[in-house]
């Protein structure tokens, strides 16, 4: 059976799944009784109660599914496929009765779900002496139920990921208690139940019914790699939230990602330290254990290395790991404290103080150029602009936006809220904006060792028009955005999977960091100064 290997693999790590599986069976049995049970359940001996449930289930479902015609067709398809398989196996069974008994056993095993193995042994003893026709019938029903149960299992796993352990029971009650929900569950199970990789749109059907939209996003990423499904139980919800937010594209820029990541990490650290205290583990292995614990979390965030972290975030994470390894305190609580303080410091150094330093350096320059052009959103640039506008009365701002109602409108909003005038232009008018402006200020995601700047899409076009009209291009970057790599062509995770554009260093006039203003080719100096080297 196609379903078997998947099911046997899932058994191992998730005992909870087995429990919920039992519960589901109970519920379905009662459902079957509500809907009208047929004879099979009464003829079976009570010892193989599971077998009776399984055989009632297809019969229950058959009259039930006549109501749901679309599902009926799909059920028929599944049944036909199961029949073919049953015929194939019937030929095997006919050749050797013992072989038939053994082939039926692995079919039974997943349904037994780790119960005592005696019951499956009883069933073949019952089945073998029967006529071959009945054998075929049993086979067909059992394969159908196997598939159904396997699919149910998957839906359960899906539901389980979205809730923490405590909520699992309620989740199951949701999916099995109300008939409407059960119908939806069946909607997921029946279609193409023969193949076990659920297409993504079907997963969303489940989610949209019982959970919020956020959960559906998580499910789509999990189901695409079924092996990781159960590992999600270990992922801290703070990181899951982070991933969900980024999928929904609520995070507009790298800085926000970093801040949110640090906050998520602080939550994780708090919980982890508390648990550690409860378990009374040694404080000396704090750093080492934390390092190990963080790995699956990060692996999940990057989908096992498929989507590397955004460059600046990668820097932050590496520095964090370094600090973790060096942690050496007496008690767990103190270790936790040190790390929390370190994280707080990082937040303030990298963000609030850095913004102030950069704006101090840059406002002096803007004073000479009255007309400023900016491209797309960057919180640092916004901070600088607001400072500059307060200090310079006759500063004029033009905002180039990549597409209409894009992120550039945030700049406009921040200015309009304070009552300042601003000009707004979409990408079409980038040339005109540069013609009028005196300086172009850009934010960036990262600066590479060769001076190349990684910026949002559309930045290169704006920079070229600025160069054409001979106006300087200034890039703003905090020190943690400097990366010790050459230019890489990659996609990055956690930023809505956007692509990044690369601007060569010869097009950029200056880079403003919180240390000082430099030329773009001086990037290695910053790397050395802030000990960001050897991070590759």
């Amino acid at each position, binding site marked *: 059976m196609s379903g078997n290997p998947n099911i046997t693999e899932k058994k191992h790590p998730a005992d909870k799944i087995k429990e919920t599986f039992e519960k589901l069976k109970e519920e379905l049995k009662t459902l079957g009784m509500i809907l009208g049970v047929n004879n099979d359940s009464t003829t079976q001996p009570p010892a193989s109660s599971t077998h009776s449930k399984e055989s009632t289930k297809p019969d229950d479902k058959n009259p039930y599914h006549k109501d749901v015609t679309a599902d009926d067709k799909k059920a028929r398809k599944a049944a036909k496929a199961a029949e073919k398989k049953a015929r194939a196996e019937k030929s095997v069974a006919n050749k050797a009765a013992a072989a038939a008994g053994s082939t039926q056993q692995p079919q039974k095993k997943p349904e037994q779900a780790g119960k005592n193995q005696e019951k499956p042994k009883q069933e073949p003893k019952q089945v073998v002496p029967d006529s071959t026709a009945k054998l075929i019938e049993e086979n067909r029903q059992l394969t159908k139920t196997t598939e159904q149960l396997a699919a149910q299992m998957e839906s359960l796993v899906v539901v389980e990921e979205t809730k923490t352990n405590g909520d699992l029971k309620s989740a199951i009650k949701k999916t099995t208690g109300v008939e409407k929900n059960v119908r939806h569950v069946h909607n997921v199970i029946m279609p193409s139940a023969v193949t076990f990789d659920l297409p993504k749109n079907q997963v969303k059907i489940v989610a949209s019914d019982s959970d919020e939209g956020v959960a559906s996003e998580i499910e789509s990423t999990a189901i695409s790699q079924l092996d990781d499904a159960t590992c999600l139980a270990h992922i801290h919800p703070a990181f899951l939230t982070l991933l969900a937010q980024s999928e929904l594209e609520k995070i507009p820029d790298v800085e926000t990602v970093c801040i949110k990541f640090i906050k998520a990490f602080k939550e994780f650290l708090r919980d982890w330290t508390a648990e550690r205290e409860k378990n009374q583990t040694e404080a000396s292995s704090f750093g080492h254990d934390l390092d190990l614990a963080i790995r699956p979390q990060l692996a999940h965030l990057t989908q096992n290395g498929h989507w590397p972290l955004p460059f600046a975030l990668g820097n932050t994470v590496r520095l964090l790991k370094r600090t973790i390894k060096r942690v050496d305190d007496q008690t767990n609580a103190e270790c936790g404290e040190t790390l929390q303080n370190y994280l707080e410091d990082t937040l303030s150094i990298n963000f609030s103080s850095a913004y102030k330093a950069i704006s101090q350096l840059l406002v002096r320059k803007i004073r000479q150029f009255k007309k400023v052009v900016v491209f797309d959103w960057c919180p640092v640039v916004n901070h600088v602009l607001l400072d500059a506008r307060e200090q310079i009365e006759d500063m004029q701002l033009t905002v180039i936006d990549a597409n209409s109602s894009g992120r550039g409108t945030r700049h406009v*909003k921040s200015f309009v809220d304070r009552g300042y005038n601003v000009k*707004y232009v979409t*990408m079409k*008018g980038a040339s005109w904006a540069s013609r009028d402006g005196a300086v172009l200020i850009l934010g960036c995601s990262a600066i590479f060792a060769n001076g190349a700047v990684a910026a949002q899409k559309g930045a*290169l*076009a704006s920079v070229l028009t600025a160069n*054409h009209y001979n106006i300087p291009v200034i890039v703003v970057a905090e020190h943690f955005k400097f990366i010790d790599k050459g230019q890489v062509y990659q996609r990055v995770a956690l930023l809505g999977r956007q692509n990044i554009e690369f601007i060569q260093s010869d097009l950029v006039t200056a880079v403003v960091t919180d240390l000082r203003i430099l030329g773009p080719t001086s990037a290695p100096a910053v790397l050395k100064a802030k000990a960001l080297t050897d991070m590759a």
Partner: protein
Amino acid sequence: MDSNTDIEDLKREFIFTLRRKFPRDSSSSIAIMTVNLIRKIIFRENPRTMADLQRSLTSHCKRLHASERSELIIINIGLMISKLARDEVLQKRGGREPEPLYSLWRDDDETMERLKNADMKKIRKDLQASIKELSTEIESSRECIASQSTELLFNNDIVMVHSLATSKTMHSFLTHAVKSGRKHRVIDVVDEEEHLETAPDFVTPIELFEVASRMPETSKVVLVAAAYFPDGSCLVPAGGHQIALLAKRHCVPVYVLAPFYKLCPFFMTDPASLHSFRSNTLPFDMSANSAGHVDCLHPAFDALQSDLVTLFVSNTSCIIPSHVNRLKEDYYHSQDIADF
């Protein structure tokens, strides 16, 4: 006078037709409309001499252009017709051809006198005939340009185009190439999200901000001109400047489709006067706060310098930008330009 009011009515109707149509009609239809209008005006006005004809043409064209500033075609057509008239006169007279190489800007006095007193009656029929020829040439310019696509686009080319949706010339250019069996991919730069769905099948639509990341894989860029000038510079729809700059950085040739009636004999000193700034592109929920504070620019054209253009594809042939000055001699008479 009757004919005068008639003419005024005609002109007014023409202007209203231009203004009513949104989005704008294709340039060739505007050109043909202008030709018809001028033909009717000449017919009604019935000028006696060449000088009269020229005076009336210039005055009408100037007024029409003043009311619709972004349509340079009107002046172009007026001047072309004037040249046609001069040619007719010379032919009738059997006079020597003015040789632009040997004469300075102005014709010598004798020719001028002759032209001034030339009697219009004799040449009117021929003038009408040549004006009709002009309009057929305008109509056929699209196919002529399209037929040149086979020489410019080759197999396995990746062609980036702009404003495919709004330009029929561009569309016929590409479909001609596709029909003659060229296998190439077309990337179309579209303005708004809506056009993304309505693009024809052989075209991949992308937005303007993605151009920079797709330029490395592009092998040719084709733009369509709104107008081109004797120095080789041209006006293209907004956004073309960035595309051309990126193409230059990646050494990709830029072809500009430019039918002859878009050739403006004058230099444009202030392209800003041509713009029709239209819609506000801010999202609606911001409009309450942003009233009075935000200035939304929505330019219609970009000016491309001549070094950004590889070839102008005209209906007769492909010309390099530095050759445009010579080409204008074919369509316009230098005297007219000087007197304008």
